[in-house]
């Protein structure tokens, strides 16, 4: 696991049935592009989060394929529909095989 990786999610705690809500996510990660060189001139190997997904009660909200051009500490904002009370599942996939997860529950009514 890359060092000091910490996912953060901003989602509403409650919503009306059928409401569309804004979700923001931020995860601390260097997103080493593979384009940089160290002080000895050696290429620093690529090490990024290459995929991010958000599901609500098992339904896919957004599935993002990520490349090295995503900035350090990747940030996403998008919208989700809340048909009923339930749980968001957020997952980040690291090049090194690590998986970082976060969940958020939403009440309805």
């Amino acid at each position, binding site marked *: 696991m890359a060092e000091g990786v910490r996912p953060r999610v901003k989602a509403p705690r409650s919503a009306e049935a059928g409401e569309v809500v804004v979700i923001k996510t931020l995860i601390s990660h260097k997103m080493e592009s593979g*384009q940089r060189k160290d002080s000895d001139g050696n290429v620093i190997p690529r090490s990024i989060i290459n995929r991010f997904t958000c599901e609500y009660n098992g339904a896919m909200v957004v599935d993002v394929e990520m490349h090295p051009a995503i900035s350090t500490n990747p940030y996403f904002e998008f919208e989700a529909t809340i048909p009923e009370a339930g749980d968001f599942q957020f997952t980040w996939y690291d090049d090194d095989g690590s998986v970082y997860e976060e969940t958020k529950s939403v009440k309805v009514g």
Partner: protein
Amino acid sequence: MDFTRRDTLAIGAAAAAATVLPMPAMASQTEDAIAEFTGGADLADGGVDLDAPEIAENGNTVPIEVSAEGASAIMVLAAGNPTPGVATFNFGKGAGAQRAKTRIRLAGTQDVIAVAKMADGSFAKTQKTVKVTIGGCGG
């Protein structure tokens, strides 16, 4: 073949540029990425929006937003980066809108391109030039 003095200078300048500048993505790389996404289908001009600053204060963190109502996916490319891929947003049935914001790296002033795959299988493209500035004194 004889080189004139002018040719030699031009070759030298080109070689110098190639050494100093990070190599931008070849135009064909960007075209290939689009072709792979669309399967070679035609690209409509409307239907996808890309919001990006006209001038970015720093190329390391450039906020962008893409949206395309009813799209199943939006691919974002940066034509002037060493590799053009930025991100592809695939929207599922839980999406409340086909819209996303993120922050991207741009190696220099260049075109950012968004291609949307619409629900009916057609494709739409838009692009925007983002000027990337250089800081005051390198500090």
